[in-house]
């Protein structure tokens, strides 16, 4: 529905299959109590896809409320400073609420309304998805409960306050390390206890089918626009597209429309935390193995007994021990590559982008920028990199200040 061109029979864009799988990944690993809900959701989503008025309504909100299309910015000074490839930034941080999250939330809230749901629950890590969800609940007058790990509540105070202002109830989750994984568990517990009236608004391309597909479809607007914009600006497709990955929604959104354009290298950047081999990392593909969590089979950070390990990243939005199942598949078939960037490298890139482009990036996409900083100098000036600048970094200035030894 959000893809502007139809998928070809042999297209890499035709997934998932009817079991919600991408190769061996994905699926519907949920308790029986949730099965009727996800089957109902899939049915409602298919009906919406087939209804042109749903698309029209979504386009209206994308244009007049979210502020789409977002620009594709030629980052001249950043390109010069790095010396090499021409760098473009897809400005998703200019969306209302400051990140790509609203693309998905807007689509799902319209679906929830079609389904007659009165109450919304969501999980959040950095708080960007929580803020986006609270925003549309305010817009449509729906009750909203956001689960957020207690550790994240502490390190993302501005977003917690935003959610309160927007009328949402924020429930801190103290289980585990108090991060995104624990918030996801608690949101699922809430959903199963309130099946009659509650819609679970998942924020990334993970969870049981149809969430990974649906969130990808809503986020694909990023890649669809990017394709049109880069062709207009350069008359050709980019050589490399880079995006940071926690669950992987901004990356999936920009990758998906390019999956069949095999000349375009797709690079997902996972948070390596203190380093890929430090034991304090969030790099699920680089350091995990396939398993089942939160409704889907995917790469997970886990011990030899199948117990899920705590992820670590300076960025609350990347601090998750799993990744969307379609990314796991793209990794295994070799269509996309996944690399790691450390906390320190992200902090350096955060400052580089701010200083050269006057854009304060979120720490999440600073991971993507750090990888761009590594590869751009190895490329020639006639080559093109597009980075998905998925969010703005105002929320992160306290974290960055403390790492730079500055007291605010």
């Amino acid at each position: 529905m959000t893809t502007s061109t139809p998928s070809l029979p042999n297209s890499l864009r035709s997934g998932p299959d009817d079991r919600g799988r991408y190769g061996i990944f994905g699926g519907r690993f949920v308790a029986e109590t949730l099965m009727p809900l996800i089957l109902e959701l899939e049915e409602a989503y298919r009906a919406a896809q087939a209804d042109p008025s749903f698309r029209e309504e979504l386009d209206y909100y994308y244009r007049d409320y979210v502020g789409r299309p977002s620009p594709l910015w030629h980052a001249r000074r950043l390109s010069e400073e790095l010396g090499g490839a021409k760098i473009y930034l897809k400005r998703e941080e200019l969306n209302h609420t400051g990140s790509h999250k609203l693309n998905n939330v807007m689509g799902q809230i319209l679906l929830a309304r079609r389904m007659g749901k009165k109450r919304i629950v969501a999980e959040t890590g950095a708080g960007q998805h929580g803020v986006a969800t609270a925003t549309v609940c305010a817009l449509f007058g729906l009750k909203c409960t956001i689960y957020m790990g207690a550790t994240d509540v502490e390190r993302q105070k501005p977003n917690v306050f935003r959610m309160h202002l927007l009328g949402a109830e924020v429930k801190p989750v103290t289980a585990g390390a108090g991060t995104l994984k624990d918030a996801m568990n608690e949101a699922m517990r809430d959903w199963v206890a309130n099946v009659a009236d509650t819609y679970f608004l998942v924020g990334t391309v993970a969870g049981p089918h149809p969430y990974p597909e649906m969130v990808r479809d809503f986020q694909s607007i990023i890649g669809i626009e990017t394709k049109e914009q880069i062709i207009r600006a350069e008359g050709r497709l980019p050589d490399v597209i880079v995006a940071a990955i926690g669950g992987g929604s901004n990356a999936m959104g920009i990758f998906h429309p390019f999956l069949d354009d095999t000349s375009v290298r797709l690079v997902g950047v996972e948070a390596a935390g203190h380093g890929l081999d430090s034991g304090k990392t969030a790099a699920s593909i680089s350091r995990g193995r396939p398993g089942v969590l939160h409704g889907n089979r995917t790469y997970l950070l886990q011990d030899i007994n199948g117990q899920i390990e705590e992820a670590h990243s300076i960025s609350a939005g990347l601090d998750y021990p799993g990744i969307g199942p379609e990314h796991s598949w793209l990794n295994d078939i070799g269509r996309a590559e996944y690399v790691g960037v450390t906390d320190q490298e992200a902090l350096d890139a955060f400052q580089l982008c701010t200083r050269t482009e006057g854009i304060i990036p979120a720490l999440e996409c600073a991971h993507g920028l750090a990888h761009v900083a590594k590869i751009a100098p190895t490329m020639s000036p006639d080559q093109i990199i597009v980075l998905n600048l998925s969010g703005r970094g105002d929320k992160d200035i306290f974290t960055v200040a403390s790492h730079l030894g500055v007291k605010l």
Partner: protein
Amino acid sequence: MSRIQARFAALKAEGRGALIPYLQACDPDFDTSLELLRAMPGAGADLIEIGVPFSDPAADGITIQNAAIRGLKAGATMARVLDMVRTFRKDDNDTPIVLMGYLNPIDSYGPAKFCFDAAAAGVDGIIVVDMPTEEADLLDNHAREAGLDIISLVAPNTSRSRLFHVLKAASGFVYYVSITGITGTNSASAEDLSKALPRIREATDLPVAIGFGISTPEQARTASRIGDAAVVASALIKTLAATLHDGKATQQTVPSVLSQLRELATAVRS
């Protein structure tokens, strides 16, 4: 005839339903949970459910979440859980044992190896919370070959057509999750249960165990009469947790849980 079939047949002849207590493996340590497991049949357990600790028990309330954390801290692994069952089987060859847990530890152990090793250790059935019928082909064939029942779960919001779909290939018994919610929170009323059971029995001839939210002897008695068995989990774990000192077992731990189990058994048998 499997142990599960034999036990339900014997209880039917006795004219009463079963009591199924639950314990979390290695909660608060291996020896204590093994001692509890071995004493449970003597205190009135007809079948026993052993929870396999998992780091992310998304269908469980806080009581069982904490039990899982204690179990993992005490070194619970799938191999240790199977050790427990193997030791139990040395003195008890009749009481059915059902493992309840989440898919990832099984997946990580290896689905085929798990089914074979579990059956060899003396496990009779498995309940995998996050493996609905749609994903059960991961274990189905291995379980059948090993002689292990995969216990199907149904819930209050399982539609009539879905009941038939889910229970088509069910074996052992059916587990009715009597509330839409997590363990150890709300309870279904006798009236709710009386309405729900005929719908389930229409789709299966297997015995139906009722679980989630059963904590008092009265509730256990009611559920075991309307259904064929009552599962009591969080209520027993709460009692266990209350006896711990700094997370460690005390002299009261095993006796307190057994005494509560006896009260439940008396009610179920009255």
